[in-house]
């Protein structure tokens, strides 16, 4: 267990150590906050409304994209660039553990970023959060970040089979933005779009947190979070299956570090 946490910390540190504290804060707080402000101002203009609760909630959850999708998604791309893929595959450690330790601190950072974004956005756009149950809110954030990190890892594994990861990761970030219901109601989407929105993380947790503002039905809230956690677990499992499959193929063909 101790080794797991050490590896998780080292993995996180290796990604962040290039930045000074002010740069780290800029990337993790100011930039996400500006993104949230942009989409909220856009919503205020396009919907001609001052009540921006829905968009503050939705866009604060989307702030995890930077960490969960871009950081985790580029994990294997980075390992390949640094020539560590062979060591990872040859290591006696289970591949699921390798996946999990890369997600731990990223997940924690994402929880902090989303929470910060939500409260800062609420203060900026006069969203009254004093009436909501904060325990339920934090539970929803943690479950959402668990699911988003799983999704990020799943996408990141494609870094083992394609060199087009910048395209893939950016495209996925827009898929989340369009289909998770953060900026416009899912009901506006065609049937295929609604199906996609049910298969990606964040949709249900955003719906659950929005419920906190409009009168929460606890059974429905719990059900939504359970579904979200299930989706997250599904992506972790798929990641594990995918990495096993790719590893096997790469060993057989001797193409671990080439495409």
């Amino acid at each position: 267990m101790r080794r797991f946490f050490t590896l998780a910390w080292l993995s996180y540190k290796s990604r962040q150590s290039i930045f000074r504290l002010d740069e780290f804060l800029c990337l993790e707080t100011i930039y996400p906050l500006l993104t949230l402000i942009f989409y909220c101002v856009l919503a205020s203009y396009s919907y001609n409304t001052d009540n921006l609760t829905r968009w503050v909630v939705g866009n604060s959850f989307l702030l995890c994209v930077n960490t969960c999708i871009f950081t985790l998604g580029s994990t294997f791309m980075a390992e390949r660039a640094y020539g560590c893929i062979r060591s990872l595959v040859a290591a006696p450690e289970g591949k699921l553990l390798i996946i999990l330790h890369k997600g731990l601190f990223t997940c924690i950072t994402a929880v902090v970023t989303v929470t910060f974004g939500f409260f800062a956005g609420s203060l900026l756009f006069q969203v009254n959060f004093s009436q909501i149950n904060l325990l339920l809110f934090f539970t929803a954030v943690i479950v959402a970040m668990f699911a988003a990190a799983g999704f990020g890892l799943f996408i990141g594994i494609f870094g083992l089979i394609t060199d087009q990861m910048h395209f893939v990761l950016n495209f996925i970030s827009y898929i989340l933005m369009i289909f998770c219901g953060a900026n416009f109601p899912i009901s506006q989407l065609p049937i295929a779009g609604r199906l996609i929105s049910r298969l990606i993380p964040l949709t249900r947790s955003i719906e659950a947190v929005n419920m906190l503002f409009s009168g929460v039905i606890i059974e429905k809230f719990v059900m939504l979070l359970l579904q979200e956690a299930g989706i997250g677990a599904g992506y972790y499992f798929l990641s594990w299956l995918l990495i096993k499959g790719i590893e096997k193929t790469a060993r057989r063909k001797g193409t671990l570090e080439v495409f």
Partner: protein
Amino acid sequence: MKELNVIVSTALLQIKSSLARSMFRFCLLANPVVNTVLLYEMFVNSQREDFLSYVVLGAGLMALWSCICFSSAGDINRERYNGTLSLIYMAPAGFRTIIAGKVAGNTILSMITFLLSFATTKILFDVRMEVAHPIYLLTAFICTIGSFSVISVFLAYLLTLSRKTQLYMNCIEIPVILVCGFVFPADILPVFLRPVSYVLSPTWAVKLLRLSVSDTFNIREYYLTLLILVGVTGLYILLGHFLAVVIERQVRIAATLEVN
């Protein structure tokens, strides 16, 4: 004439090498499409009669700016990473000419974003669009491209000074889209932010584009905006020139072109 040849050949090379990068392909081809979908869905129930101008121009401009942030601004870093920065810096053709060629290549290619945004709106949402004043729109479009090219050169020079280009190019994308009013009028921003938006040339370029497709076309306002855009862009050219001289001097004295 020699300089023009260098610019043309650098621009052609830049187009080829930019297209080979997956990030640029996303900014150029996918970004206008997904942004159009997102903006259309956000504006479709807005009951604003001119909402299509925000969708098409907004998505095109956002993609154009992304291309600039992740290509023109990042090119210096790429040259540094590939170990060719000092070579192009010392090349007899001149660093400024080469940078101008790179920016020209990227900007010309990035004009596709507007076409893609327009095509997406037409194909996916079957919306009919008419341009009442095509000549004014074309003029605004040419001025926008010119203005964005100048700001790209400015950014490229500025980012020569740092190795953390990737951080900065990520951090300038959204703030400029927000402050310059790419998808909503800059006038709705809080008063304290307006001076920032007024000194940025994209604000005037966006306003000019929007005025040229407006139903209530006001020729006086159009020419005034055009004049301001030309003035601000001229100021950027002067500042860029000054910056280039300062940076060149600093780089030669400290010898930190590749290690700063």
